[in-house]
């Protein structure tokens, strides 16, 4: 897992969902562990798009269930952009 991207993802999640940084581990689920509702998830995706300057489709967003999913998707997008 790309550590730099993980840390940026962690920062966004802490800001958006107001959870403790230590709780943002790769296996954590946004809905089950952070109690995120559908609107929280949309906001989170928008925040990722802003932080990483990428565009995330509805289908891609739906596949993101855990922190690791987000890091993986954003790593792919950032690398594809390079």
């Amino acid at each position, binding site marked *: 897992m790309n550590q730099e991207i993980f840390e940026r993802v962690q920062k966004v999640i802490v800001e958006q969902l107001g959870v403790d940084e230590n709780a943002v581990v790769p296996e954590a689920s946004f809905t089950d562990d952070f109690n995120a*509702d559908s*609107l929280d998830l949309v*906001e989170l995706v*928008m925040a990722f798009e802003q932080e990483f300057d990428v565009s995330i489709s509805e289908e891609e967003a739906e596949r993101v269930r855990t922190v690791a999913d987000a890091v993986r998707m954003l790593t792919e997008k950032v690398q594809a952009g390079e």
Partner: protein
Amino acid sequence: MTLSLDGRVALITGAGRGIGKAVAQTLATAGARVALLSRTEANAQAVAHAIEAAGGHALAFGGDVADPSTVDTVIEQTLKHWECLDIVVNNAGVTRDTLLLRMKDDDWDAVLQTNLKGAFVCSRAALKPMMRQRWGRIVNISSVVGLTGNAGQANYAASKAALIAFTKSVALEMGSRGITCNAVAPGLIETDMTQAMPQQARDYALQRIPVGRFGTPEDIAYGVLFLCSEYAAYITGQVFVIDGGLTVGI
């Protein structure tokens, strides 16, 4: 709490004349900085000048409310000037009145495009800053004909009814973020739009208004101001009928 909108930033569409102009002036008088969008930029500029002359703050834009890139630019510029966007009043509206049998595809499309898609485009764009702020007010200007229907206005009435369902849906989606969304349904208001009605129709309508007069654009603007204020924080998804009693009893 007061009805003051000090520190708030509002976007008003169709702000060049009629109800939109009155809403812009009323919100500006209440302390809001207002961004005015009008299809005819000169109209928006004239209203902006009047607001500035009265000591308010206004930005004028020309363009189509249903064009996402225009709306994005308007919101971008507004955020650049004032750093927030708290209120959107989706007022831009057009009519293409004719009986359904005579209604052309273009009559239908043009009305739905401005009246309904315009509200969708502007609301969607405004929600991002509103969600960040955890505060927002969206007011959609519907019409009593969106509740009653109206012969000769199948397109307009459908667009205004659709705005009501749109309003309720946005209210449901955004309630948890401090964003309210309400509709205002004006009755017969003295504007260019109703001036264009045949005199006979105006006379007939007047007989059916309990208050005994057509409304003024300000009558509507005061209702909008209330819905945008702190007093209306617990009101969302509602239709505020301002019609002098026209639809009471029918």
